[in-house]
């Protein structure tokens, strides 16, 4: 066999061996599927809080996810009419996010209202939470 051919074989085998070692992964490193849904913590409004008509109801919500969120949706549902009002929705990548918003209670509102919050991560694990509030 030609000496250069043999040398070339050894060079290539050495390259393959180095690359194979670099490509090694331990069995313990096997990835998993994310099944943990995001967490929602509604700081305001408090459950069953009462707001005057025409006032601004504060909305403060903290979101958390183990890997990162995909989106959140915040609606205020008028239970007397069944009409939802979008407070905020956003596409987002972060493990922690805080929303600080306000919702104007209409002058002619009869109420009650319900704050509906939904948080979704990239695996579409979803958490929903509802907070009832009243109107005077």
């Amino acid at each position: 066999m030609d000496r250069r051919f043999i040398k070339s074989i050894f060079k290539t085998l050495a390259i393959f061996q180095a690359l194979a070692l670099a490509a090694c992964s331990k069995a313990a490193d096997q990835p998993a599927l994310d099944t943990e849904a995001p967490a929602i913590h509604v700081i305001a409004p408090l459950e069953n809080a009462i707001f005057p008509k025409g006032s601004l109801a504060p909305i403060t919500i903290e979101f958390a996810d183990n890997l990162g969120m995909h989106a959140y949706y915040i609606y205020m549902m008028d239970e007397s009419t069944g009409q939802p009002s979008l407070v905020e929705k956003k596409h987002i990548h972060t493990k922690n996010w805080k929303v600080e918003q306000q919702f104007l209670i209409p002058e002619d509102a009869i109420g009650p209202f319900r704050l509906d919050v939904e948080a979704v991560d990239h695996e579409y694990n979803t958490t929903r939470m509802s907070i009832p509030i009243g109107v005077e």
Partner: protein
Amino acid sequence: MAIKYLLLAALLFGSLSAKACDACGCSLSQAYWGLMPNNNNHYVGIWWQHQSYRSFFEQDIYPEQGGIPEYFNAIELRARYRLSPFLQVVAILPYAYNVRREPTGARAIEGVGDALAMASFTIIDNSDSLKFAVRHRLALGAGVKAPTGRYLRREPLDLSNPNFQLGSGSWDVLFNLNYTGRWRTFGLNLDGTYRYNNTNANDYRFGHRFNGAATLFWLGSSGMLEVMPNASLLYEKAGWDVEEGYYHTNTGGEALFGGLGLELYWPRFNLGASWSLPLSQNLSAGLLDAGSRASVHLNYFF
């Protein structure tokens, strides 16, 4: 001389369809080598590659947006150095310009991409022999992709397509098998490349990828000019990306492309172009639609 040139032209390095993409791609997907003659020569070349996609990662949040068009462009400096009759090294250094056309305006990133180098060893080669009606060449390759392209961890309000990056941020390993068979003026090239991706400093690993290509070609000549039209089937498959030990199931996927190309050869120069369309696809769990791809290149042999 012309006959010898034609014979040499048959010794194709083959198409190395190793993104980004991808899926995948995109900026991290393929480095198409194309059909390359003059296996006994070194070369340097400049290549332009274009890929188009439409992404739907935020469709559930903003359905009124429709799909977002994304375009991935790269200018590549390529070179091959022949260490011995059986061993050669090829390298690619890309410069990428990626654009995403959002409803609020175009968003672009540009810069040096991930450099790639591969050593190829010829196992079987009877292409020089006039004894055989069908001539064969089989080569085995191995290489690395270096994290010379910028990888940016996504900001809270950033876009969803993880492939909209200049680089993977990791050292990755490639393995390639390439076969060329030729009968008279017709030939078939089969190429397969597997890329093993490592985890980057942000604890993100792009899915491992496989790319395969089957190309039929015909060689003709007119004076000093050699012409090689070709038709290809290109297949790519990528596994799910992994972040912090968890799979992202809206990544990876597979696609099959059909393509047409034309190569022109004259002493020391090669000019080539190709265009391909997806025939079937399922990328990023249906959240990414691949569009057409195009490539133009100019190589100089020495």
